[in-house]
C-alpha cells in the first residue's frame, strides 16, 4: 500500500476493530474506508452500536485497529506504539468532548496550556499561545477563571481553545453540544463554522441531525460500515 494523496488528512483503508467480549468476538467496525481532505467539515452520524465511537477512537489515535490501515496527515499511524500515538495525539489532534473534561482546579488558561506542557514548550511560550487560543474562541476576559466560574458554553469554548492550541491537523469533536442547551449549542456551532472558514479540518460525531446539518459532509455508519456519505450545502 502506498502513501495516500498529500491533500488527504485522513485516509483509512478497510479499518476493522474487533473486541473480545468474554470469549465472544464483537466486530465493532467491519471494514471502513474513509477519506477526508484538508479543510473538510465532516459529521459522523449513526445509531448507538453503529461503531461511530469506535471509529472516533481510531481516528483520534486513542485506539489501534485490529486490521486495516490508517494514515493521518501522510503518516501511517495504524501500527504505532502507545508513546508514539501520544505524540500524534499531542501534535495532530485536538479533542473536544461532550463533558468538556476540564481540570476543575486549574484556570482556563492553565487548562488550555495542558497540551503544550506535553509538547515540551517553555512557560512563556505556552502562556502566549494559550492566550491566543482563548482569544480565538472569544474568552480573552475569562482566562483566570476556573471551570466552576464559567457557564457550560464558556467551558466548551475553553475546551475548544485547548483543542486548537497545538494547531492540530484535525479538530475531533465527540458530541460537542450533548451537554448544552440549544442556544449555547448554536454558539458553539458558530465557533466551529468560523474555525472551518479559517481552514480548520473538523470531524464531529453527533446523533443530532440539526447539529450535523452544520457540517458540509455527513457520513452515516450502520453496523460497523459506512451506510451513506453525503455532501450538503452548509
Amino acid at each position, binding site marked *: 500500500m502506498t502513501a495516500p494523496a498529500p491533500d488527504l488528512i485522513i485516509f483509512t483503508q478497510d479499518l476493522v476493530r474487533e473486541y473480545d467480549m468474554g470469549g465472544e468476538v464483537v466486530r465493532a467496525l467491519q471494514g471502513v474506508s474513509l477519506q477526508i481532505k484538508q479543510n473538510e467539515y465532516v459529521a459522523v452520524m449513526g445509531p448507538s452500536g453503529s461503531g461511530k465511537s469506535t471509529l472516533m*477512537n481510531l481516528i*483520534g489515535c*486513542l*485506539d489501534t485497529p485490529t486490521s486495516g490501515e490508517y494514515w493521518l496527515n501522510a503518516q501511517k499511524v495504524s501500527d504505532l506504539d*502507545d*508513546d508514539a500515538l*501520544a*505524540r500524534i*495525539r*499531542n*501534535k495532530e489532534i485536538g*479533542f473536544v*468532548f461532550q463533558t468538556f*473534561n476540564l*481540570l476543575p*482546579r486549574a484556570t482556563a488558561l492553565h487548562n488550555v496550556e*495542558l*497540551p503544550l*506542557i*506535553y*509538547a*515540551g514548550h517553555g512557560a512563556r511560550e505556552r502562556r502566549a499561545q494559550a492566550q491566543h487560543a482563548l482569544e480565538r474562541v472569544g474568552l480573552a476576559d475569562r482566562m483566570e477563571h476556573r471551570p466552576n466560574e464559567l457557564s457550560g458554553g464558556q467551558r466548551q469554548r475553553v475546551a475548544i481553545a*485547548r483543542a486548537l492550541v*497545538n494547531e492540530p491537523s484535525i479538530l475531533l469533536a465527540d458530541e460537542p453540544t450533548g451537554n448544552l442547551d440549544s442556544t449555547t449549542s448554536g454558539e458553539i456551532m458558530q465557533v466551529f463554522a468560523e474555525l472551518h472558514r479559517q481552514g480548520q479540518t473538523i470531524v464531529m460525531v453527533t446523533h443530532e441531525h440539526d447539529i450535523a446539518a452544520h457540517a458540509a459532509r455527513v457520513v452515516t455508519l450502520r453496523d460497523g460500515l459506512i451506510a451513506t456519505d453525503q455532501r450538503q450545502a452548509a
Partner: protein
Amino acid sequence: MPVFEAFRLALQTIRAQKLKSGFSLLGVFIGVASLIAAWSIVNGGNRYMTEKFAQTLFGVNTFQLRRRPMFTPNVPDSVWRAWWRRPRIKFSDAEAVSAALTVPVVTAWQSSENVSVFYGGKEARDIELTTASERYFDIKNLRLALGRPFTAQENRSGVPVAVLGDAVAKRLFADRTPLERSVRIGGIAYRVIGVVEKQGSILGFPLDRFVVVPALSPAQNLVNPPGVLDAFLVKAQSEIEMREAMEVAEGVMRSRRHLRPKQDNNFVLDTSEGVQRFWAGISRILVVVLPNIVVVSLVIGGIVIMNIMLMSVAERTREIGLRKALGARRRDVLRQFLAESAAIATVGAAFGIVAGIGLTLLINAASPLPATVSPLSVVLGVVMGAGVGVVAGVYPASRAARLDPIAALRQE
C-alpha cells in the same frame, strides 16, 4: 513533561488536598522527627559524657592511681570486698611514681571525706572535704571566682587555709565576702582564701558542695589515716604521654607491692575511659533502637502514602485519561505521580525536620544534655523521606501510567 512541571503540579495537588496530604505525610513526619531528635540526644549525650562528665570527674589526659575504680556501676559484692582488702595508696607511693615519671606531667594528691563546715552559727552539712596538693585546681580545671588557690609553700607547711565551693560560700556567707573569714572544719579553724566558680550539677549531682584544703594541713586526719591518700592524680600533655606515664606508674607500683608477673594489679590506674565505656553501653542501645523506630515509621509512612496515592489514582482516572488524550506519554503520567508522592514525603520530611529541631531545642532547654542537631541527620532525613515517597509511589504511578485512555475517559 519536564520534572519541574511535575513537581509544580504535585505541590498544587498537595495544597488542594490538605487534609489527605496531611495524613499521608504523618508517617514520614514522625520518622524524620524521631530520627533527628534521637540523633541529637545521642550526640548531646556523647558530648556531655566525654566533655563535661569525664572531664569534670577526671580531667583531660589525666589518670588517677587509686585503690579501686572511682566510677563503679553494677559491681558484684565479691569484687567490692576484694577492692576493700587491697592496700591503700601511700604518700610514699605517690612520691615514688612522681620521681620515676619521664614525661612532663602535673600531679596532685587527693583525699576526700564528707564533713560539716561551720561559720558563726551556720552549718553547711554534707560537704565534701578534699585534702589536696596545690596543682589539684589545675588538674580539675577549677577557676576561682574570688581570692586565690593555696600555694605549694602553704601545702608543704600545712597552713590551714581553705578554698570553698560556690554552694558552701553561699550557704555560710550569703552575700558577704568569705575571704579572710575563719570557718571551722572538724573543730579546726581554717582561713578562707578563695571561692571556686559555680560548677553547676552533673546528672543531678551538685558539684559545688566542697571545700579544698592543703593535703598536709591539720584536717588530713579527718580524711585518711596518716600517710594515706585516696588518689594520686597525674595529668599529661597528650593521650600518648598519659599512656606512657601510666606504664611507668604501673611498673613502679607493681615493684613496690612485690607483685609477681602472674598476679593482678592490686591498685587501679583509673581514667575517664571507664565512664565513657559505661556511656557507650547506653548509647549503643540507643543506636540500635533508634534506627528501628525510624525504619518502622518510614515503612508505615510509605504504606500510607502508597494507599493514598492508589486512592488518588482511582479518583483521578478521568484526569489521567484526559492527559493521555492530550498527549501525555506513559512516562509523563508516571513522573507526575512519582513527583506527587515524593513531594508529599519530602514535605513530611521537612515538617519532621522542623519538629526534630524543635524537640532538640526543648531537650537542650529542659535537660543538662547539650543536644545539637547534626547536619548529617537533616540530610539523611530529607533523602530518606524523599526516597520513601518515590518507592511508595512506584506502584500507584505505574498503574496510572498503564491506564487505557478510552476507558479512563469514559469513567464517571
